[in-house]
């Protein structure tokens, strides 16, 4: 073990060829590495000198697939990009194509989409809270979070028939209408979640060990975020109120009253706080959407059968649970996309890791990487 005091070699430019440096391979098979990320850590003692994320283990060639099938056939892929908030990606892809083809979406479908997406966002954040606390050693909050998440999955299951990869959206609407049982269930869940948040607060947020493990750990400031294109809760934890739902409202998000929570510290604790508050905001949105849900059809009266957008490039961004998800779609006028670039938030978020991880302790590695809320299939696509 190195005798150097902690932080002595916190220079990201530090020499990995130092005689005491060794390489620790974390992942892709590691019990608590998130997905199949591999971190090649050059370390001295327990301190990381250079961290090098190695990705691509879950590359499924979504972008290549998109170029080989028509717009509709890519739909099931969309909820598999990020399987933890598949609804947002699925609906997002539908909205991108609808924009290209200028398809009108009925009001009721719009509201259902918002309800489904925001429930999915809550589920995704709940999962993050659970896994993050698990990363720093707390097992029980993890199961409480999963229990709450289970309620959401059951709700979504009731309307989509799936629990993870929903394929719920269609160009112009959604596949299934919501019934009263779903709405009642959603209201019950909203009440339940509101009573659960104080419990998380007591069990997790106020716990001194949790605070000590999270405060000042993995700081990503505004500059770092901007340099690496970090978006989502990680960016908002650094004090930037950037949210696609506000900066370029898509769907009907401009009709809802919600705030963009921010924190200033940019550390793991701030990221936790932002996500908890985002859950509260999402609860607010769902409450409003359930209240205002109009009656009517869920698909256009005469749905299009052929999807052939005009030639040209377009970009459509949605706020996914992990940040700004963008689709750069190029059409050559045929039924098949010429190019679909998926700008996934975790990709950019993870690319900041070499900078953030340098100089930290190996014990914090999992906590920091975990606090980003990365989903590897989303990064690898």
């Amino acid at each position, binding site marked *: 073990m190195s005798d150097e005091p902690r932080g002595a070699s916190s220079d990201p430019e530090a020499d990995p060829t130092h005689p005491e440096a060794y390489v620790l391979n974390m992942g892709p098979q590691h019990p608590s590495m998130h997905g199949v990320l591999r971190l090649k850590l050059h370390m001295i003692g327990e301190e990381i000198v250079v961290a090098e994320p190695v990705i691509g283990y879950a590359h499924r060639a979504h972008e290549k697939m998109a170029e080989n*099938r028509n717009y*509709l*056939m*890519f*739909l*099931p*892929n969309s909820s*598999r990009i990020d399987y933890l908030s598949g609804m947002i990606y699925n609906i997002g892809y539908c909205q991108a194509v609808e924009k290209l083809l200028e398809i009108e979406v009925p009001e009721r479908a719009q509201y259902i989409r918002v309800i489904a997406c925001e429930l999915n966002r809550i589920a995704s954040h709940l999962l993050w809270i659970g896994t993050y606390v698990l990363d720093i050693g707390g097992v*029980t909050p993890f199961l*409480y979070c999963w*229990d709450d998440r*289970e309620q959401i999955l*059951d709700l979504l*299951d*009731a*309307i*989509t*028939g*799936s629990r993870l*990869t929903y*394929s719920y959206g*269609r160009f112009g609407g959604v*596949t*299934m209408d919501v019934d009263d049982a779903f709405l009642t269930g959603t209201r019950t869940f909203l009440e339940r979640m509101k009573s659960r948040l104080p*419990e998380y607060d*007591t*069990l997790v947020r*106020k*716990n*001194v*060990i949790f*605070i000590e493990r999270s*405060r000042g750990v993995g700081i990503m400031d505004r500059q770092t975020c901007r340099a690496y294109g970090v978006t989502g809760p990680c960016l908002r934890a650094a004090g930037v109120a950037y949210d696609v739902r506000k900066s370029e409202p898509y769907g009907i998000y401009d009709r809802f009253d919600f705030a963009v929570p921010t*924190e*200033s*510290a940019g550390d793991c*604790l*701030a990221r936790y706080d932002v996500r908890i508050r985002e859950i509260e905001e999402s609860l607010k949105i769902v409450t409003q959407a359930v209240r205002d849900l109009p009656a009517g059809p869920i698909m256009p009266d005469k749905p299009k059968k052929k999807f052939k957008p005009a030639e040209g490039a377009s970009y459509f961004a949605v706020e996914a649970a992990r940040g700004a998800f963008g689709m750069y779609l190029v059409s050559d006028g045929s039924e098949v996309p010429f190019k679909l670039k998926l700008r996934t938030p975790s990709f950019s978020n993870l690319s900041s890791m070499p900078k953030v991880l340098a100089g930290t302790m190996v014990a914090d590695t999992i906590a920091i990487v975990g606090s980003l809320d990365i989903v590897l299939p989303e990064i690898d696509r």
Partner: protein
Amino acid sequence: METPTRTGRLGRFFTGFGSLFHGLAVTSRHFGRTIFLRKNVTQQYPHEKPTLPKAYRSAIRLIRFPETDSHDCVGCKACERICPSACIAVDGGKVEGIKKKRASHFEMDFALCSLCGLCLDVCPTTTLEYSRLYDEAGYNRNWKHDLLAEFRAREPAFIAEQRQREQAEAEAKAQKAPKKEKPPKEGDAP
């Protein structure tokens, strides 16, 4: 950021120490709820069967319509074309004696299916639906479902009945047609 609520390190120390007991209180509450109120969230799966939601998605199957006691697949291959996973193989066409086209082969490889439901959307005769299978498991990748299997035995009888139906329809039409030709639209719907 944490705001220092009490002055000094000692105060923080005790606040921190106290927070541990609050946490213990939360877990003990759940502990008590579970053992005394018997409120646990476990579903004892093989002993208890899950309740499947109405929208539950599983392997597709052909709907058995009560009027005909058979499916209505005409083998148009729309589902085969739209399937992103290329897991559907359909064949069919003209059958001797009836006007309606019939599927002669409908095979779905469930191992490849991604349950997206696009085939249900495009089916012109809406004869596809999700089955309620939830405990599929096996030892190899060969997971072909023959969707026509349950209909095959009845197929000759169906064709015979269909012939009668079509004849009856044609007769009804023939009777109607010469009488009055005013509403041109009604004649379309059988």
